[in-house]
């Protein structure tokens, strides 16, 4: 204490935001050196939610690991499920059926809406607008109810299977989806009315937490955050997968890279997702859900109980796993938060040799450390909410 001359004008107070703080939405820690409310230096720490999910991928069969993908970004579990299934299918050179692709696109867009809802709602909650949170969360629940009707789960879905989906769409799904698509734009308009023109909201978010184009390139920021900074990049359009080339949608690009632009981009992306959902609903083809490939095809339960060969086949798929040929594959999709990718190295057999996940939250948290310096504590909170860092995906 004696050799540290106390500077009364800059007492160098250290403060921990997290790992247990109302605004961190998960366990992440930001150590800040503050002067008054200004953050002079910051250091981010990750690893509080590390569950060795990637390592577990080397011990589990390809199907068993599907459930772990739910726990990455738990706001958009469907997107992770499908991207993972897509990666394994690419390794096995399987292309899913038309109907399967349409269902998957519906799932991914639903999860995008859910993820954006969570992000905007939590961000608004952190900035004190609690009503926005509740109004939006209502629609997340509606979306979850629809997902529940598809696969029986709400949060951790595990809906995709390698080569198909675990269930076909339920009866009357088209009407439900249509109703949802008709109603949610009204809710989005209501939120726009509460926030977009709100002076306090604009003051709190404009020029706050700016991620520049250069930052995006340096830290490989993707998704809505990159688009809000003015980078016109969307994997759905630039590296199309499934039926996206046939669909009509716009890529939303902002300019400022601040919290307000990220909010606007997310709002408009929800509208675009609704557009995609509507088109999928109209074009939804009939036909088989599963690929006609014996290596991955999970047999019908009725046949399993009545036919010997099918029973053996079923047993082998679930007890031994599917045999994936040697090779490696990296597949990425445009997740709600950015580029979600899975990298799998296979040496043959039912288990992967290596699995790695590319998660957008990881890169967003890296750039967070840089951009909060010089801002104030409330700015850091606004920024943290707007990049939607999900601890499950950050730490894996």
């Amino acid at each position, binding site marked *: 204490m004696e050799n540290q001359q106390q500077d009364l004008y800059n007492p160098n107070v250290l403060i921990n935001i997290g790992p247990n703080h109302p605004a961190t939405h998960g366990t992440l820690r930001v150590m800040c050196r503050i002067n008054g409310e200004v953050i002079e230096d910051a250091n981010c720490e990750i690893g509080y939610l590390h569950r060795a999910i990637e390592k577990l991928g080397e011990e589990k069969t390809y199907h068993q690991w599907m459930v772990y993908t739910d726990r990455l970004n738990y706001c958009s579990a469907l997107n992770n499920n499908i991207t993972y299934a897509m990666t394994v299918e690419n390794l096995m050179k399987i292309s899913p059926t038309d109907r399967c692709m349409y269902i998957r696109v519906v799932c991914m867009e639903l999860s995008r809406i859910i993820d954006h809802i969570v992000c905007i709602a939590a961000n608004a909650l952190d900035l004190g607008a609690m009503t926005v949170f509740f109004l939006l969360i209502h629609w997340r629940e509606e979306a979850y109810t629809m997902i529940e009707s598809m696969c029986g789960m709400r949060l951790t879905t595990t809906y995709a299977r390698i080569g198909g989906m675990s269930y076909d769409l339920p009866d009357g799904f088209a009407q439900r989806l249509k109703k949802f698509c008709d109603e949610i734009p009204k809710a989005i308009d209501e939120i726009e009315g509460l926030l977009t023109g709100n002076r306090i*909201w604009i003051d*709190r978010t404009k020029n706050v937490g700016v991620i520049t184009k250069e930052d995006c390139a340096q830290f490989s920021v993707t998704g809505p955050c990159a688009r809000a900074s003015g980078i016109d990049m969307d994997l759905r359009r630039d590296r199309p997968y499934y039926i996206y080339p046939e669909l009509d949608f716009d890529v939303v690009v902002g300019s400022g890279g601040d919290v307000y632009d990220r909010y606007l981009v997310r709002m408009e992306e929800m509208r675009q997702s609704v557009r995609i959902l509507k088109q999928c609903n109209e074009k939804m083809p009939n036909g088989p859900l599963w690929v006609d490939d014996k290596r991955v095809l999970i047999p019908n339960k009725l046949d399993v109980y009545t036919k010997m060969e099918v029973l053996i086949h079923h047993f082998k798929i679930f007890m031994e796993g599917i045999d994936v040929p040697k090779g490696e594959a990296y597949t990425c999709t445009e997740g709600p938060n950015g580029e979600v990718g899975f990298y799998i190295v296979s040496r043959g057999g039912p288990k992967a040799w290596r699995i790695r996940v590319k998660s957008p939250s990881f890169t967003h948290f890296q750039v967070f450390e840089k951009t909060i310096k010089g801002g104030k504590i409330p700015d850091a909170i606004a920024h943290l909410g707007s990049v939607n860092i999900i601890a499950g995906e950050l730490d894996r």
Partner: protein
Amino acid sequence: MEMFDLIAVMAKILFVIAISLGVIPFLVWFERRGSAWMQGRVGPNRIGPFGLLQTTADVIKFVCKEDFVPKNANKFFYHMAPTVALVAPLCAMAVIPFGSYLVLGDHTVNLQIANMNTGVIFILAFAGLEVYPIILAGWASNNKYSVLGALRGSAQIVSYEIAMGLALLSMLVVYGSFNPHEMVAWQNETIFGFLPRWGAFVNPIGALVFWIAIFAETNRLPFDLPEGESEIVAGYHLEYGGMKFAAFFMAEYVAMIMASGLISTIYFGGYGFLPGMQTILNLATEYFSLGVAGVQNVKALLEFTSFFSKVSFFMFVFVWVRWTLPRFRFDQLMDLGWKILFPLSLINLILVTLGVYFLN
């Protein structure tokens, strides 16, 4: 002092404290049900009719909780803070009149605990005390987030007190009196024959500034920075649990009631009749063929109703605004206070003074 006066004062103190503390459970219930209504939820509806007893259950929970004190807290100030927080706004309520007077036999009872000529100054003095619990709580808790909240809170309250004081001053110029009764009497006239001569209609800018300032004074959204639950966790009362937290919580509501009473008295005619109440009084007088004392007592009752409904309206506005707006940032709050409200209220004061000088 006569025995009667003593009893009357005691009864009035009891009445005011009972009303202002007694409506808090109802207010909390209203806040929660009201927010639920705005947010498309149901809200508390299980305990008691319409969930009215929910707050009672909460109080029982608070009382039964462990009386926790952080290890390195300054015990004396730590315990003093919630007490001051609750007492200061309750004291300020002493000079807010809730009716003109009652006639009981030979005596008249002034419906105000303390009729002081310096009434408004008294209110400002005790409203100013509200800054102390925040500083004390923040400092004594020995927590960095608490200190941040205390710093925010003290700066905020002191800054907005200036705008609030100037807005009040402009009304004092109009009324030419510090006495709340005289203010209400002045407002009982009408302008152009139909519009009540309320302070808000005479001096709308002052009313607006005052209205914004009381939000800041009571630490309600959009000015709840000292608490700022998502930023600095819970701010100055972060380390308080159980009944001590409940004391802060109640203090916020008492301060809201006090502020609503103040703005009703100074800008919205106080206990003066709402439109239509004179007709009720006339009807009652005819129907019951009341004497002079009876008329005055019915009048006092109606006046109390008028005052109560005005206060209730402002309480509703508090709740309404809270669940609609996001929170300010600290520097923006200071900008609003010093760069907009302070000059605005100063210019307004000059204009009002000139107006009063030339019109009289």
